[in-house]
């Protein structure tokens, strides 16, 4: 059968690539932020897939802790990005 870690790891890489491409190419700022978040989820997925050791054994807690902090930082960074965008909009008067 397919190795679970490899399957999710590859999906993580694919998501990160999709997110990164859209981060570079997307003109609209809010969607750029979405793309950055999707890229982040891809990287988290790669890390959690690396930590996974099978359906019956406990996974690696160090990587889980890292991802946990990553999620909180990602949401605060997104909020900062949105605030910057709002400010820019106010300033342009558009």
């Amino acid at each position, binding site marked *: *059968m*397919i*190795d*679970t*870690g*490899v*399957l*999710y790891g*590859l999906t*993580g*890489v*694919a*998501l*990160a*690539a*999709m997110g*990164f*491409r*859209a981060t570079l*190419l997307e*003109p*609209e*700022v*809010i*969607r*750029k*932020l*979405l793309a950055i*978040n*999707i890229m982040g*989820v891809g990287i988290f*997925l790669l890390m*959690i897939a690396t*930590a*996974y050791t099978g*359906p019956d054994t*406990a*996974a*690696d*807690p*160090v990587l*889980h*802790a890292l*991802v*946990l*902090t990553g*999620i*909180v*930082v990602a*949401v*605060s960074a*997104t*909020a900062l990005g*949105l*605030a*910057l965008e*709002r*400010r820019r909009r*106010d300033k342009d008067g*558009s």
Partner: protein
Amino acid sequence: MNTLSWSFLDILLVIALVLLAGAALRARSLRQSIILFIAFGLVTALVWARLRAPDVALAEAAIGAGLTGALLLTALRNRPSEESRLVSNNGMRWGGRWGNVAITVSVSLVALGIGWAVLYGMNDTQSGRLAGQVGSALELSGVSNPVTAVLLNFRAYDTLLELAVLLAALLGILSLGGGRATHCTVDPIATSLRGWLVPLLILTAGYQLWVGAHAPGGAFQAGALLAAAGVVQHLAGRAHAGLPVGAVLRVLMVSGIGIFMTMGLWTFLGGRGFLAYPQRWAGELILLIELFATLAIAVTLILCYLGSEPERRRITPAGSKP
């Protein structure tokens, strides 16, 4: 039979993830992009649960499926409606069609390289080493949940710095000014929803904080749940989102870092080294730090959502607002 079922489940979840991510990046309007992204966060929480990462799943369920969605949807609300329907071209663009192709090709090449590394490097025996170390030191940490042990004992520095990052982001947002002055209309369904949802959220946050010592849960999850309670209050028409004002609010903002630094200095002056707790009290100290970290995280996330501090004076004469 069972491995086959697991593979089916995995493939279905992976399809859902990629489908939603692609659709979110491609949807015609921003609003639809955001809804698809919320659904993506939900499926992500499922994937964390399936990969035996309950701590991460809890945080994702609270933040990815709840807070980020509310944050993004509320950001759209202040825009003119036709603008949110048709995506505007106002950001930076990279040189034309050929630039587009070049970026796509190079990103794909990098992804293929990393994918190759994943394919051949995943089953490396090295990866279990840190987990083994955590397992053998767990009983010294004062808690029995390994993730909490890593976050608040073994790598407490990281968590302290993370709280600093959160505070930095918050200060950035507050210094930009001009936050979300609009508040929501009062509506009977939202009000009744608030009536039972807010107490339940606060209760669950308390439970998560307490249970984090020996089972998945902890300060981040509890903080996110408390923040969600604030967001619900705001959505139901309370401009303050349940936050205190003035000095109390600012003390709460820095309380997480404050208690961490106090503990660190205390253990340092006691000759043990920065943030090296005495083993006998480690459990209690961790709970104390987590309590303040929860409050700080909750206040920070609510303020990130609001975009500005609630105004100091609540009672203003009607119609006097500019």
